[in-house]
């Protein structure tokens, strides 16, 4: 069951499988004798080793609280593996094992004519929706999902798997079934909410497979433009409130589709696709007085938006305008003594999601010891095989 390659004998002794990860964190922190974080945020350092340990724990076993997220099992794996990638610790995982596990989630059409049946042949989110009892059952219970497919390809990409080995034609041809007349995407063939998150996933999938036959880019762009709000940010659907995550999905998708010029900051007024000056103004305004980023106006700062909104500014070429010192202090005030990061400074326990986006945010800031990100893909490395 153990995934990590290099396991210290010391950690082998820690608790049986029934022991909660929380307890293990505490014990681990004690065992490796890491100093408690300093109280003065000015003196805070990124506790890299502690974070690696935290993610290794997650790789080994997720506590039962994660049951309610089991349908996004590949996404949970993405956070852990990509987190280790940012921390420069991918040497600690067994890449072949990961590749075969990820590939086992792919839905395969029986014949190429299946690709016209309206279903999407991507990756399942978890085993609960995937059945391999006999071959005839597989395709009638296809629950593959755009977000899981994005996560699968992102993981494979970052561990150096050659993406040309994948049946990408099946993914791309069938993905067209998910695009709606208004340009948006639904994530799964039997229907679910349609919004910018899945436009982003579709664009990232096409980009990673280096093949844009999977979507109508012009339509997707139209949809994205309709989501820009009166204040310059983007909502998840047309008419909804500007939101840091939605704005990232919009801007990163436009970037992946090639609609944003690299030199946009030198002549923002000439941008033809988005109201860039208003977007930049809105994005910079999200840095609050405590140095952190909020996802929406008049909401508290939350670690993950340092990536979502910071990423938008990075893509647009305006990242150097934010107050890096203040942001770094905010993020490090959310560093947990158990490893990982919390959502808010007042929280005690870290979670995988906010940990991952804190690592990503610190990488954007070029924090020492962290690998650089490909910001629009949300992962570290772009390997030479797939892209």
């Amino acid at each position: 069951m153990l995934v990590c390659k290099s396991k210290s004998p010391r950690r082998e002794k820690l608790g049986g499988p029934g022991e909660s990860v929380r307890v293990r964190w505490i014990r681990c922190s004690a065992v490796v004798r890491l100093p408690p974080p300093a109280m003065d945020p000015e003196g805070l350092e990124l506790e890299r080793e502690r974070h690696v340990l935290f993610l290794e724990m997650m790789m080994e076993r997720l506590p039962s609280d994660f049951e309610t997220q089991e349908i996004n099992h590949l996404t949970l794996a993405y956070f852990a593996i990509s987190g280790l990638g940012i921390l420069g610790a991918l040497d600690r995982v067994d890449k072949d094992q990961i590749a075969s596990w990820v590939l086992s989630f792919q839905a395969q059409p029986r014949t190429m004519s299946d690709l016209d049946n309206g279903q999407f042949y991507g990756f399942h989110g978890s085993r609960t929706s995937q059945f391999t009892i006999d071959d005839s059952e597989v395709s009638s219970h296809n629950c593959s999902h755009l977000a899981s497919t994005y996560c699968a390809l992102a993981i494979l990409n970052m561990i150096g798997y050659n993406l040309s080995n994948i049946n990408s034609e099946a993914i791309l041809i069938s993905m067209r079934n998910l695009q709606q007349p208004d340009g948006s995407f639904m994530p799964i063939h039997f229907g679910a909410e349609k919004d910018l998150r899945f436009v982003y996933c579709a664009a990232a999938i096409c980009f990673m497979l280096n093949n844009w036959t999977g979507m109508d880019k012009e339509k997707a762009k139209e949809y994205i433009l309709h989501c820009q709000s009166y204040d310059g940010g983007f909502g998840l659907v047309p008419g909804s409130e500007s939101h840091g995550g939605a704005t990232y999905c919009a801007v990163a998708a436009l970037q992946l589709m090639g609609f944003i010029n690299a030199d946009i900051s030198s002549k923002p007024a000439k941008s033809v696709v988005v109201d860039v000056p208003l977007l930049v103004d809105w994005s910079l305004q999200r840095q609050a007085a405590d140095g952190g980023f909020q996802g929406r106006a008049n909401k508290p700062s939350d670690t993950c938006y340092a990536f979502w909104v910071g990423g938008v500014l990075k893509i647009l070429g305006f990242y150097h305008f934010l107050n890096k010192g203040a942001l770094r202090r905010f993020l490090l005030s959310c560093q947990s003594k158990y490893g990982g990061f919390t959502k808010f400074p007042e929280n005690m326990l870290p979670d995988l999601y906010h940990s991952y986006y804190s690592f990503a945010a610190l990488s954007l800031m070029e924090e020492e010891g962290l690998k650089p990100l490909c910001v629009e893909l949300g992962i570290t490395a772009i390997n030479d095989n797939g892209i």
Partner: protein
Amino acid sequence: MSSSDDDDERIPFIQRPEWSDVRPVPQDDGPHPIVPIAYHDDFRETMDYFRAVYLADERSRRALDLTTEAIGMNPANYTVWHFRRLVLEALNVDLHEERDFIDEIAVRNSKNYQIWHHRRWVAEKLGPQAADKELEFTMMILALDAKNYHAWSHRQWVLQSLGGWEKELDYCCKLLEDDIFNNSAWNQRYFVITRSPLLGGLQAMRDSEVSYTVEAILANPQNESPWRYLRGLYKGDTDLLVSDNQVSDVCLKVLKTNHNYIFALSLLLDLLCYGFQPSHELKRVVQFLGKTETDSSDANLATTICSILETVDPMRSNYWAWRKNNLPSQVC
């Protein structure tokens, strides 16, 4: 809300006579799972039975009950929800009952995408007669968290697809009365005035909305939301934004109070970049602030504004410095 009691009394499926004919289908995690989850026994068993009925495509009453249990433990599992919809259709279940079921579970799962999607599916089937109930439901969720993104999305969908616009502007007013900093309510207000078929659109609403917004700004000039809303009222019409005295007037009024003037300066800067010709009074007020906050006094107005903002808005001082160096050549 007796869910925790139910959990305590839960009888495993294996001991339930009505399920004795079903062979559970265990989850096949394969030889080397990554990030394995430490499932509880109850969770695992429920999903094993779910897999069995799903594979057998058994669209029965007990299958429906099983999905209720599975959703209680695993509300994000879209496969379970999908199968539930198939069963609901096959059994021709009264969807009003289904709506009651969602009412019950939504409060403690109000940020779960699948539940909201299911709610929409039910409301869509019930049609326009469901509009009032849906608006009431979102009001109930928004009373607990006035910024719940899912509830707002659902509400906007209801208005556009099923109707019920009549009292929406009043509702926005009420929420803004409760909390004038609620940006979600400002956004909804914009949604209503631009999209309601009853109000005549942005142009027809602009004057009264500008008055409302100016009042909100003067009460709390540090509140970003009404400033953005004010600009939104002139979306696509920069000339009108520049020429409408109400806009520069509210900037002047806030600047004269001598505090919380960052948003006023920021808007004034944009007005100047669009060709606005400032009054002597406005120049004097800004230059007075410039003398207090910075060393510059001989520069043009836009430059002075940038210099003040560099000092009083430390999170964005690099940005204001860049703006200062990239002002349009004709700016005042």
